[in-house]
């Protein structure tokens, strides 16, 4: 699979200007980001802009660094011992790796949904209420219930669970659990929602519901989604970044990536020649 000869890498992604013209100021501005697990460099000199109220997809073969990269955007890699970052990640022009940044505040603004759904072993209601409680976002019980309901509606789960809010979240199906995790992330009203292969463990119908949801979420949120499924990237995203061996090979509008990629490597990947 990986028998492809490593071609020369472009240092700057293509067509940056047409991207900027279409979408204005970037929400996230990544500048020469390198990431290390111990001595091993997992991300090499990544620079890209992520725009507000669009869906940005990261694609690439397993081990290409796309998950590592998305986790640098809310500093989720901080919990892994022996990792190191250099370079900058500016969110609304503030570097999240600058000294003195409050990681808790950062993660409140940059929500995350994981590959494997991870509901807490609590009731459905308490799962969604968790972030609201720890961030003291509801002043009364009725406000709390209102926000829980609102979040479950946004995650297209309300109809299925409204009769059993106080039952265990672990009794839900896999797809419902993942939408619950999305509702939980949305409850604390983040600006940005990171999704790390949110549908990879789900059946096609559950996947379709998540995809519809992602498509609708961009009206209110900046959505970044990692996927190994190229059709999924083509269906839900406005911009696509292709990663390979820890590098960003190409980043452009999704329609351009999938119809007229600039790089030979991107073309080989999306046409299924490797990966």
């Amino acid at each position, binding site marked *: 699979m990986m028998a492809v000869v490593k071609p020369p890498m472009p240092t700057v992604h293509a067509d940056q200007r047409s991207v900027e013209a279409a979408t204005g100021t970037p929400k996230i501005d990544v500048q020469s980001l390198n990431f290390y697990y111990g001595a091993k460099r997992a991300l090499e000199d990544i620079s890209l802009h992520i725009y507000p109220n669009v869906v940005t997809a990261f694609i690439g073969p397993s081990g290409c660094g796309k998950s590592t990269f998305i986790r640098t955007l809310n500093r989720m890699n901080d*919990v892994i011992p022996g990792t190191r970052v250099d370079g900058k990640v500016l969110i609304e022009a503030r570097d999240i790796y600058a000294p003195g940044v409050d990681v808790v505040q950062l*993660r*409140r603004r940059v929500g995350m949904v*994981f590959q494997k759904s991870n509901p*807490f*072993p609590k009731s459905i209601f308490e799962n969604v209420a968790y972030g609201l409680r720890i961030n003291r976002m509801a002043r009364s019980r009725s406000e709390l219930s209102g926000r829980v309901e609102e979040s479950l509606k946004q995650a297209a789960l309300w109809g299925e669970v409204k009769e059993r809010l106080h039952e265990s979240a*672990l*009794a839900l199906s896999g797809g419902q659990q993942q939408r619950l*995790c999305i509702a939980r992330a949305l409850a604390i009203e983040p600006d940005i929602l990171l999704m790390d292969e949110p549908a990879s463990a789900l059946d096609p119908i559950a996947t379709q519901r998540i995809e519809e949801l992602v498509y609708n979420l961009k009206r209110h949120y900046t959505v970044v989604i990692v996927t190994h499924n190229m059709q999924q990237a083509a269906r839900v995203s406005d911009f696509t970044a292709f990663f390979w061996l820890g590098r960003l090979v190409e980043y452009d509008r999704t329609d351009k990536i999938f119809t007229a990629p600039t790089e030979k490597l991107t073309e080989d990947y999306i046409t299924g020649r490797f990966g």
Partner: protein
Amino acid sequence: MTYGMRRRIVSAMFVGACALSVLIALVPLAMILFFVVREGIQSLNVALFTQMPRPVGETGGGMLNAFVGTLILTALGASAAVPIGIVSGIFMSEYKGSRFAVAVRFAADTLNGVPSIVVGIFAYGIAVLPFRQFSALAGGVALGIMMIPIVARTTEELLLLVPGALREGALALGATRARAVFTVIVPAALPGIVTGILLALARIAGETAPLLFTSFNNQFFSTNLRQPISSATVQIYTYATSPYVDQHRQAWAAALVLVAFVFVCSLAARFVTARVQRLRG
């Protein structure tokens, strides 16, 4: 003989050997239960729980003071050991790679293996000698020392079983590390921790040696923590080594009560575990 036949015979032999080993292992338990129930049930009556011991030579009476004493001593031990044990367990699981955590784990395992009579002598040294007084408190100290490593290690092991994804989920919602531990990780492991505490309680309630030089014994009814206090186990020991038949009889009955307590604790522990597994679907 074909290879297939030979294989079946060898298999049957090993299955037979396994079954036999299990039987041999269960024989002591079955015999303990048999004798304790047979001897104890005859003397088991309401008076055992409601009346005080009669003077030597008289028949009848009960062990009210001893059972109350055991409850007090167990509660004293647990009230110190449960919080200390749980917090140590959290420390060991949260800082599992650190040298200090490794040292604490080793210390807990060593403490767990210290003979209970030695724990009793230690408690005598720190809680009896300085006050020149046997006391319920000293007994509680001894039982607490026995219980801490059990609770700490159970807590640690159960916390380590909680999936890392739950921690990440909590952190991603803006929880601090401490918040994630106390609102998500510990609650997720709590049923198992409760089970461990119940089993530890059953264990210390049946200890005699740590109490011999600490809470000593008391032939009167006492709830004074600064005074010596009676306990079911020390009373059984005293009665069993006495020459009076009626005291032997009561010792058997008290032994039956202790065994029943252990049994109830184990059942409760199983019930908690089963209930949680059902909830988790």
